[in-house]
């Protein structure tokens, strides 16, 4: 009699999580190792090695890596500027508010905004052309390309970095700076030997989070490029809609590959996170 009431409060949560989060994922992961007859096979995983799928994974990884690194360093610079740069207080709070909004401004509308900015008739494209005489499209830029998509992803990556890293920078105790100064450290020594080692784990952890964030995203890319840019989520989307690979289990294998990559990324994230928490209590 005691056990049921004890578990009653958490039962809906666990039933929900198992039915709609864990089982569907397991189903795909098992499906990746089965053939149509339900027998165990590694063929689906082996079939991921075909050039078009490898290319899709590769471009996804490149875009996620580029956008997370650019987003991370730019976000860190902005965070340091607003926390430690001696800027007025309202800039700090305005930046944080805006970051909260911009980090959630993703998906289809973000693609529209960048088309209006850097598309062929976008404001920035036109102004660069008419005022500065720089026709970026003649120089090989295209919003429907690797750099176009990366530049667009950065729009939600930077604010996400700002939101996560500002508390870490806030956690740098004033005493550490004073202690370093008392011991005769220069500004660069203080940064190199105190600030960077302390921020490093949460910075790297956030980079990985940004990577996973970009890797699973589809809406922005799809609205921006249609299916002209062959990233993994778009490939999987096409496969779910119309079995373009003519092999249902290959779709499972692609999903499995995505989970492996974002899963690995998150294992590293948790590892870095626990390391950073030691300092930032």
């Amino acid at each position, binding site marked *: 009699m005691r056990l049921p009431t004890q578990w009653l409060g*958490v039962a809906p949560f666990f039933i929900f999580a198992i039915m709609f989060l864990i089982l569907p*994922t397991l189903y795909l992961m098992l499906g990746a190792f089965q053939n149509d007859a339900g027998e165990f096979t590694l063929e689906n995983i082996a079939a991921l090695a075909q050039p078009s799928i490898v290319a899709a994974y590769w471009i996804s990884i490149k875009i996620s890596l580029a956008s997370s690194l650019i987003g991370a360093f730019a976000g860190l610079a*902005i965070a340091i500027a607003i926390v430690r740069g001696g800027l007025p207080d309202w800039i700090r709070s305005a930046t944080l508010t805006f970051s909260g*909004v911009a980090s959630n401004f993703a998906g289809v509308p973000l693609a529209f905004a960048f088309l209006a900015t850097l598309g062929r008739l976008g404001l920035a494209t036109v102004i660069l052309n008419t005022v500065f005489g720089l026709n970026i499209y003649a120089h090989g830029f295209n919003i429907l390309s690797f750099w176009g998509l990366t530049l667009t992803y950065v729009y939600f990556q930077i604010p996400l970095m700002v939101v996560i890293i500002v508390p870490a920078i806030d956690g740098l105790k004033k005493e550490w700076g004073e202690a370093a100064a008392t011991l005769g450290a220069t500004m660069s020594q203080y940064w190199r030997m105190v600030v960077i080692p302390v921020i490093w784990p949460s910075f790297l952890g956030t980079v990985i989070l940004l990577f996973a964030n970009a890797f699973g995203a589809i809406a922005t890319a799809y609205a921006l490029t249609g299916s002209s840019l062959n990233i993994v989520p778009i490939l999987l989307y096409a496969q779910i809609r119309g079995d373009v690979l003519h092999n249902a289990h290959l779709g499972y294998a692609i999903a499995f590959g*995505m*989970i492996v990559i974002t899963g690995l990324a998150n294992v590293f994230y948790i590892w870095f996170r626990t390391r950073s928490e030691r300092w930032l209590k």
Partner: protein
Amino acid sequence: MKSGKFWAWLVFALGAAYFFIPLIATVEFSMRMRRGEYSFDAYKVVLGDARFQATFGYSVLAAVFTIILGVLIVVPAAYWIRLRLPQLRPIVEFITLLPLVIPAIVIVFGYIRMYGSNSPLPFLATDTGTTALLVIGYATLALPYMYRAVDTGLRTIDVRTLTEAAQILGAGWGTIITRVILPNVLIAVLSGAFLTFAIVIGEFTMASLLNRPAFGPYLQNIGANRAYEPAALAIIAFAITWGCMSLIQILSRFAPRSANRPN
């Protein structure tokens, strides 16, 4: 120190330029519909479009149900873990982080395969079932945010004392949760709710793969077929996101700092 300030301003200005230019460009583009002059025609066309109203209404409703479902799942679990089962906390926290690990497209792919018309639980056999599955999918996407919001809210109140006081006064579990705990974490729940709303309202992947007439697929469709309306829609979507985040900020001012005073 002087040069430090210069660099800070420079970084801030570059960041502000990167973030404001697309917004300005989008506003400008959205007003270009009428030849030779700026107008709000694109907004009029969009807001007057029957499909805009229908899909937006559908997504608002889906968001409301997502929030209700999320609250029903998360509040009792988070409360119970604080009160009785703290040993489950790491497991529950791990599960609530899973939606950040498993991409939405993979989750919905799993649903399509598991809950098809021929399965034991044929959600996809009916329209209502598919919509229910969409709401469920949205609730999983919102899980990390909802759980963290509610857990933060519970941390600021003394769950044990409140529960015991209510029990002494003869309250049952239902009364305790709905009339004692929920009002105390209402602000946290509302923060989670607005964040959920912001995430769900324009969601594309799940709605599109489940073939639901939602706002996200409508946006994508307009983007593929029109010139100026997408820019107007982007501004509207930005305004909605901004609205949700502002409401969260305003609410957080009313949140109790900490009622959990250690004697």
